[in-house]
Each structure stands twice: as C-alpha cells, then as structure tokens.
C-alpha cells in the first residue's frame, strides 16, 4: 500500500461514511461529491485517465448537481426531531456482514495478491474505435436508454397542468 | 437577422469609445476638484443666517421668533431665545438667538425656513463641500458657523438678494418714516402739551389729550423675498 493510495482511499471512505451519516442532507451531498472525486483519483492512479475524468465530469459536474437540486426541491417539511434512520442496527449489521464476507473473500483469493503489470498503453483513440466497432450495439442501446431516461425524467417531473 | 442588432450596438459603443478621446460632445465629464462648473444661481444647499454689520454676532437679522423652528419639516433647527434685547438693523429693540443650531445631516434643503422667515434673516447657501470626519457633531453647526454676511448672499444669489434688500429698504424706510413721524408727533405732542400746559397754566388744568405714541412693531406680514 502506497502513501498516495492510503490518503485517497482514506478520504474516499471517510467522506462516504460522512455522506451516509450526516444529518444535514446538503452536507451529505457535498461529502458524496468528495467521495466521487476521491474515486476519480483512484481511477487516475489505476491509469484510467479517461474514465477518471469522465467520472468527475459526470458525477461532480452533473449527478451531484441533480441530487442537490432534488434536496432543495424536496425541502423537508418533516419534523426535525424525528430520527433520520430506521432501525439502524439491522441495516448496519447486514452491511458489516456483507463487508466481512467480501473482505474475507478478497483476502483469501490469490487474485488479490496480484501485482500490476507495467502501465498499459491505452489511448482514447482505440477506446473510441472499440466503441464504434466491438461495442457499437451497447453504445446504441445506451444512446436509446439515455434519450428515454431524459424524456422519462422530464415527463415524470413535469408539473401537471393547472386545473387538472 | 439575428446578430445585426448586436453589431449595430457594438458600432455605436465603439463610436462612443473613440469619440471620447477627441469629441467633447461624447465626454462631458468635469474632473471635479480641479475643474469646477460655476454654481447656478438657483442652486441651494443648506440654510445660513444673514448678518449686516462687521461683527457677525451683533448684526444677525434673526430675532429668534422661532417660526422656522416650528415650520421645519425634519425639525433640524434648534433656537434658544435670548433673555435681553438689543437693537436690530432698524434700531428697534429685539430678542436675538442665544443659540441657533442646525443639524445639516437632518436638513433636507426644502427652503421652508426661508419662505416663512419674516425678517429676511435665513437664506439658502450654495456651499456643498461639507464633508467632515466627525461622525456625530461635524454637521451640527451653530450660529457662529451659520452667520454669513449679506455680501455673501448678494454674491451667491444676486437676484434674490436684490429683492430682499429692496424689501428691507422698504421696511427701513417705513420704520424711519414712522420714527420721524413719531418724533414729529412727539414734538408736536410735546409742543401741544406745552402750549396746552401753558394754556392750562393760563386757563386752569384740563384732561391730557389722547395722543398714542406707541409705535407699531414692524408688520409681521412682510413679504418674503420673491
């Protein structure tokens, strides 16, 4: 484990914990952004520059803004003193159990000991060529999905006509 | 077409920009402390008190009638009437302001004090460089600061000052005429009294004649300066 990795991983996990545990939802959203940025840092460490920067562009630039808008638009009228969680211990124990299982699996597996090969030669050009040849069907499906999602989101969230 | 309006506007602003370097029409700014525009005659800022003689305190026209104090809409005038009296410009015995303060930070330059003053004693000044470092007392001016000579008034508002001087001259003339008349009447009365006394002395005492020497105070309805 190297120092940069430790710093970024610690930041990512810490802000993820904050994102799920803080009371103020805007603080949660801002911590989530930090998690996204930390993940992008991890991607960059793994020589996935393009995906890392896409992560920042999409998550920090768009998804977090969506979440923040949603939080402000649903400014809770709920009473403040109500606990923000339901029966936390059940959920947390399920999560801890899941983590222990996965961690054991990871540590036991010989794959986990694998050391990285020298940085692979990745160019955005080949990525694009692959998208247009091998992955052209998923790409088209994705385009369709994004269009459908956009239309769906607009129609769902559209204000109903007055007097209806 | 979309965009032509933007281009037209940009040409116009470019003309303004270039014109500001050579065309005085397009750059009318006066760089104030160094360059000044002569004050317009109708300009007015804050009131001041007019005095006539060399000594500002002795020559104040104000008689502390407190009309302006009562009329002032923002109530920025504070007057304390004197205990004693002294002769005014007509030689009449009048009160004078022991204290006359105006809070210029409250004054709204409405000129009502000038309108109501029967004595042509409060006028509007054109002084505007009044900035001060004292936040609370700096703009509270007393009668020493307020007193300015009639010469100053003539300089800043020549037309008004002429009208005001004329009105005062009429007053003075009236007062002098009255005084003269009074003196004459007194002399006459005295002469009459004398003759009567003599006559009485000759023909025995008779009731004194009804002579009313009490001089009327100057008319309160004196026309304010036009």
């Amino acid at each position, binding site marked *: 484990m190297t120092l940069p990795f430790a710093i970024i991983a610690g930041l990512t996990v810490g802000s993820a914990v904050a994102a799920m545990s803080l009371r103020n939802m805007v603080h949660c959203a801002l911590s989530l952004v930090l998690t996204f940025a930390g993940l992008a840092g991890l991607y960059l460490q793994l020589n996935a520059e393009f995906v890392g920067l896409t992560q920042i562009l999409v998550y920090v630039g*768009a998804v977090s803004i969506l979440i923040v808008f949603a939080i402000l638009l649903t400014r809770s009228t709920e009473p403040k003193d109500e606990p923000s969680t339901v029966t936390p211990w059940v959920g947390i124990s399920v999560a801890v159990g899941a983590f222990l299982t996965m961690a054991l699996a990871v540590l036991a597996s010989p794959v986990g000991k694998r050391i990285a090969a020298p940085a692979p030669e*990745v160019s*955005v050009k080949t990525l694009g060529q692959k998208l247009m040849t091998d992955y052209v069907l998923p790409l088209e499906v994705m385009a369709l999905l994004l269009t459908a999602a956009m239309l769906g989101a607009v129609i769902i969230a559209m204000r109903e006509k007055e007097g209806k | 077409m*979309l965009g032509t309006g933007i281009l037209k506007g940009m040409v116009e602003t470019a003309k303004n920009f270039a014109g*500001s370097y050579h065309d005085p029409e397009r750059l009318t700014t006066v*760089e104030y402390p160094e360059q000044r525009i002569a004050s317009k005659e109708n300009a007015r800022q804050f009131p001041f008190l007019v005095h006539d003689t060399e000594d500002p305190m002795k020559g104040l026209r104000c008689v502390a009638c407190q009309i302006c104090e009562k009329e002032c809409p923002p109530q920025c005038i504070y007057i304390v009437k004197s205990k004693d009296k002294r002769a005014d410009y007509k030689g009449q015995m009048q009160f004078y302001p022991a204290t006359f303060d105006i809070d210029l930070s409250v004054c709204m330059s409405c000129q009502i004090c000038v309108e109501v003053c029967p004595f042509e004693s409060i006028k509007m000044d054109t002084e505007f460089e009044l900035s001060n470092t004292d936040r609370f007392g700096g703009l509270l001016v007393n009668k020493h600061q307020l007193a300015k000579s009639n010469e100053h008034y003539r300089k800043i508002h020549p037309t008004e000052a002429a009208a005001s001087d004329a009105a005062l001259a009429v007053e003075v003339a009236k007062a002098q005429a009255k005084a003269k008349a009074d003196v004459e009447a007194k002399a006459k009365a005295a002469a009459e009294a004398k003759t009567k006394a003599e006559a009485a002395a000759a023909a025995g005492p008779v009731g004194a004649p009804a002579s009313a020497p009490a001089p009327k105070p100057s008319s309160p309805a004196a026309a304010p300066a036009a």
Partner: protein
Amino acid sequence: MAELFAKLDALPVTLKHLLLGLLPGATPEWLVAVVSAVLSITPILAVFPLMFALTTVIERKGLGRIQNRIGPNRVGIPLTDIRLFGFGQFIADGIKSLIKEDVVPRAADKVVHFLAPIALLIPVLLTYSVLPFGKNMVPLDLPQTGLLFFFAVGASTELSVFMAGWSSRNKYSLLGAMRAIAQMVSYEIPLILSALTVVMIAGTLSLPGIVESQTELKFGFLYTWHLFTPWGLVGFFLFLTAAAAEANRTPFDLPEAESEIIAGYFTEYSGFKFAIFFLAEYLGLFAMCGLGITLFLGGWLPPVKLAPFTWVPSWCWFLGKLSALIVLFIWLRGTLPRLRTDQLMGFAWKFLLPMTLINLVVAALWHLSANSIPLVARWPLCFAMLAIPYWLLGRGFEAKFTKREYRFAN
C-alpha cells in the same frame, strides 16, 4: 537573427531548465519533480492574477469611455502627484479587500461558507495546467485527455457556486446560485459540443496536439487556423457565446444581476473572500478565452508564416490573442443589456444546441469531402449549410423578441 528570436521564444523553457540545473546533483527525483512543478506553476500564478488586476482597471476605464465617462484615473503612486492614468487602482482595491472586515452571517453554515471560495478558485486555477501558453510550454501535458481534463475540472466549479449560495442562508444567494447552476449546466453542452468539432477534426484531446494540427500551411504562408474554416468560424462564435455564459459575463450575467438579486451567490461575502470570487470569475474567463484560442485561433501560432510575425515569441502571440479576446468581452459588456432568465434558457436550448449539432455535422462533411470537392466550392457550400439554419433559427428569436407593441407610448 532567426536564432536570437528562437532563443527569445524558448526563454521561459530555458530559464526553467537553468533553474532546475542549479539543484545539487544528489537531489532525489521526487524533489526535482516538485521543484519543476513549482517552477511551472509560479509564472501562471504571477501572470494571470496580475492580468486580472490590470483587466479590472482597463475594463472600468473602457466601460467608462463607452458610456461617455472617464473612468478611474486618480490612483497612482501614493504621496505623490503621479497618477499613472489610474493604474494604481488595483493595488488600492487589493489592499482594501485585504483589510476589510470579513462578515459571516450568523445563520450561515460556517464551514461550507468558508470552503466555497477556495473550492471555486482551485478548479479554476487547475484549468490553466493543461493550456499550452507557447511552444513547448504546457505545464501538464496530458496527451490523451487534455481537453477532457479542462472540462471536467471546469464543471466542478458549479458545485462551489452552489456551496456559496446555499451556505449563506440568504434567499438572494440561493436564487443566484440556482440561476448560475442552471445557466452553467445548460451552456456547458454547447460549449463542449462546439469544442468537440475541433477534437473530431484534429483527432486528439491533447491541447498541444490541437495546436499542432493547425500548423499546416495554406498558400505557402497562411496557417490553417480552425477559425479559417466555415465550421471553425461558426464554432468559434458559438464557443465564445457559451464561454461568456459559463463565465457569467454580460449579457449572461444573470446570476449576479445586481438589480434583481444584489450580487447573486456571493451576496454574503465580503473582504478577501469576495475578492477571491471576483478573481475566480475573471480567471475562469481567461481560461475559457485561452481554450478558445487554443482550439480555434491557432494557440501560440502567428496568423501567417512571414518574417515579422514569426519573430514574435509564441507566448507573446498567446497573451496577445488573450488580451484581444478580453477586450472583445469588455466591449460586449459595454454594449449589451442583460437577458431575461427564460430568454437565456431558450437561447441555450433552442439556438445554441441545434447550431452546435449542425456544426458538428458540417465539420464531419468538411473533413470527409476534403479530397472530393475543391476548396473553392467546399468553403461556400459548408458555410451555406451553417448560414441557412442560423438564419432560420435566428428568425424565430426575432419574431418573438423584436416586434413589440406599446399601448401608451405609440
């Protein structure tokens, strides 16, 4: 002679290598990397904030002249009568903002309120790291993802704007932040799409690579700036429009429309934090201009390869083009009134977005027909393919916004 100019051109690079050579031989490698980075960062941190400072004065003077005023011309050297045409103003402003009281509203979210200006300034400064300022002068060369880095980092400023607006607990701040975010998200699409045409033609995301793609010569002396192609010409103006909106410049400065919402998202900021917002805004504009120069105006290239032009160092060309664009933005600010919110959104979605998409198609056509149609026919053809949609789309706006009936004035 030519060698001397070449040396002058490479002066910053030579200087850096000279300074790096001063390090003792036993210096560990990571320290050399750090020193090298610092040496690259320092000129950026010196030149662009200074440029911002000068721009504030020039902008005020220029706007003054445009509005038949003189503008600031007093502050010069203190305690003397030397006025320097008012160019001491920015120092006075800087000192003022440094020593002013830093007011934080009682209800504000203190931590977020404090972090917002920092979170705004850092991404803006980061965008400079991939711009090529001159030949071999790019602080961080990302051959695969340079442009994506610029946009990714630029996109994260939106969140800082939200942080500033939300943490102030002020309705004007929040309104300003919402407006700013809606505007930035809407205009980011035309911005990226108009930049994408260049990526498509140049075939690289690397910004120095994009400049290199414009070094071919036409007629033996004219550099093939992308501006000289029909799609580049239209793309450049689309890019500038979107960049003005991204940087909150007039006529798209609704987020800080003082007549409506005071100062927008930085209403509750004072003193040095306000200065940081101001600085970040201008630095963002400069970065956008720098990107526009790199993409369309040939970066650090002179317009023609002829003797007097090639003598000027490449970084001077970059800074000169940058200054020209800044002057253009000041000029626009002095000319145009502010849009309304619905006009702003309508313009982005109904005009800029279709235009950038058409531009993308035309650029592809231009690229594919390079060998089949001669330039004399190709240029007007492609230009017409852009001009006709422009005219049609623009007509919709004119019909909507120019004819206006006044009930009483007529």
